[in-house]
């Protein structure tokens, strides 16, 4: 039994090392394009509300910016959210990405943040000029 535990531990340790050697994922379709239609069809209750977009911006700065903006090393970890297609995307599809996340794509879920604030982040993203 002890031997099995040590073997399992060794396998896990090896996997821990190899997890970092895996090649980076290639560019793929944006995550929001996979949103189910019932989500994509949802309208943002804060669309065009500049006050809500300001709150959304504060949440974006604290939760999203570090991955979605270029860091001091000149790299961006997550998708570029300044693109025109983000402004034009169905708001419900962006909301879906924020709520559900997808760790296969490195996107964490922000379901811990109440729905109202997630919509306000969407309002901020779509309020910006690309």
């Amino acid at each position, binding site marked *: 039994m002890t031997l099995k535990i040590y073997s399992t*531990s060794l396998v896990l340790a090896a996997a821990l090392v190899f997890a970092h050697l895996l090649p980076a994922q290639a560019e793929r379709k944006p995550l929001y394009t996979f949103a189910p239609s019932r989500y994509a069809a949802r309208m943002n209750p804060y669309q065009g509300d500049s006050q809500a977009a300001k709150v959304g911006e504060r949440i974006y700065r604290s939760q999203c910016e570090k991955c979605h903006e270029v860091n001091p090393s000149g790299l961006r970890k997550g998708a570029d959210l300044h693109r025109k297609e983000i402004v034009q995307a169905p708001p419900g599809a962006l909301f879906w990405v924020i709520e559900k996340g997808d760790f296969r794509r490195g996107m964490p879920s922000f379901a811990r943040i109440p729905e109202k604030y997630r919509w306000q982040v969407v309002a901020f993203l779509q309020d910006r000029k690309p």
Partner: protein
Amino acid sequence: MRLLLLLSLLFSALPAVAQHRPYFVTYNDEMEEVGNLEINSYSVLGSPRSGNTFAGYQAELEYGATGWWSSALYLDGQSTANESTVFTGYRWENRFRLLPTQHLVNPVLYFEFAHINGANKSLREIVGHDVEKDQAEANQLRRPEVEKEVELKLILSSHAKGWNVSENFIAEKPLHNDPWEFGYAFGVSRPLSFVPSGSGCSFCKENIQLGVETYGGLGDSSQFGLRDTSHYLAPVISWRFAQNANARLSPGFGLNDQSHRMLLRFSFTYEIEQFGPKLARLFRSR
């Protein structure tokens, strides 16, 4: 030189903004961010009615290997008044998130291997027939008992309207002939605010999480149930006092005669962002 580079890597960490679970015993579905290293110092103070006051310690290094896998190494020790301060062993914990996206209930599997001795008083979980009098026995009597054990947990976690609700079902098996031991933990928590105040203050509401957890033993495979088990109810508070540092405090109150009257837990956490990739770059550039 390499040591200096490593130290500079530690202190050049970018600010981390993720909220961490406020609980001490209950786990939720939040995993360590990929490439980040979390250094955690944990202590628990207890005063058994028929023994000496003790402090259990744990040093933890947790690393986010992938989006679905976090791995942690723990070093355990304890000090008992009028007795001694002893190293009590190590643990290796792994958590695996089972579903790639968020659902109503998010399951995480937990696997731990522990090589500890009988004097261990870290009390990171309560299982089987763990009771107050276990911590009242003298270190010199308990220390020679070396235990190797595996621990499995099913972690279920949900988020609704800003609240986190988590349930843990615990099964622990010593690798010699002792039976499986069972336990539970249940926690509810919520940050005081979700909107950053924008002033960069430490005492702002968004930096504080409040919650409550309850945990205890459920007997073992030969005597399952609440008989001769201990149970606790513990309010928890977590405060992010700097962008990458966090403190937690929890007084746990015993709910029956087998429990400690109170266990006071506290911890400090420091997170180093993108430690793994930085370390890899450091050695690649040599």
